[in-house]
């Protein structure tokens, strides 16, 4: 490695709240781009964002009571992420996926795989998991830990925080 000034890594924290297909792509584009340019990246998944992290990619009713089971079934997993506008009942994400493939743009799966390889840290929000009746075992292995907002804020000290 050539001699370079030792610079402290810039930090960026991305809160994935909306769980929408297009916004998730934007979040991962920023995350992988940042990680590939020497920044330390943390992603904090909360509420609808958790849907992208479920091991179960389709619709499955999870949770202990009727309402949480209904919510989980309605939300689905990574295969059911809606577009933030013009969703057309779920047709648009599939159409958009096709447009992306045609233009050689990385799909969400590829971006998530790159994120793992780049060592991006994943945190899941304890509060929303509690409400939605999701446990850590329901989420992909990349999730380091289930934390609360105080931990998130500590981990994001000196970081730019982005809310998506």
């Amino acid at each position, binding site marked *: *490695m*050539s001699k*370079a000034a030792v610079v402290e890594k810039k930090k960026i924290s991305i809160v994935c709240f909306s769980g929408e297909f297009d916004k998730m792509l934007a979040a991962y584009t920023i995350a992988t781009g940042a990680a590939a*340019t020497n920044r330390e990246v943390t992603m904090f998944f909360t509420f609808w964002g958790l849907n992208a992290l479920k091991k179960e990619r389709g619709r499955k009713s999870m949770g202990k009571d009727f309402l949480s089971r209904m919510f989980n079934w309605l939300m689905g997993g990574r295969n059911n992420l809606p577009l933030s506008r013009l969703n057309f009942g779920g047709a648009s994400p599939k159409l958009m996926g096709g447009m992306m493939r045609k233009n*050689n743009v990385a799909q969400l799966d590829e971006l998530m795989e*790159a994120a793992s390889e780049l060592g991006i840290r994943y945190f899941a929000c304890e509060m929303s998991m509690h409400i939605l009746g999701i446990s850590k075992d329901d989420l992909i292995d990349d999730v380091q830990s289930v934390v609360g907002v105080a931990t998130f804020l500590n981990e994001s000290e000196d970081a730019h925080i982005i809310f998506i």
Partner: protein
Amino acid sequence: MKHFLDITRETCPMTFVKVKLRLAKMEAGEQLEVLLNEGEPLENVPRSCEEQGYKVLSIEPTDNDQHMLLIQK
């Protein structure tokens, strides 16, 4: 040892993400040749390499509006 990577079919951010991941697997002192397109890749890839302390040895244009980048880890 010299490695080679073709990112002409990739789009942002996978252009410099793939370069970074390949460089991470290499030993210090090894070289990577990257074939890339003009525009975003040419703008972002050399810069992201230098930001991580890797040395861009040369950028040569090729025949069809592409460029060959030589990076040393």
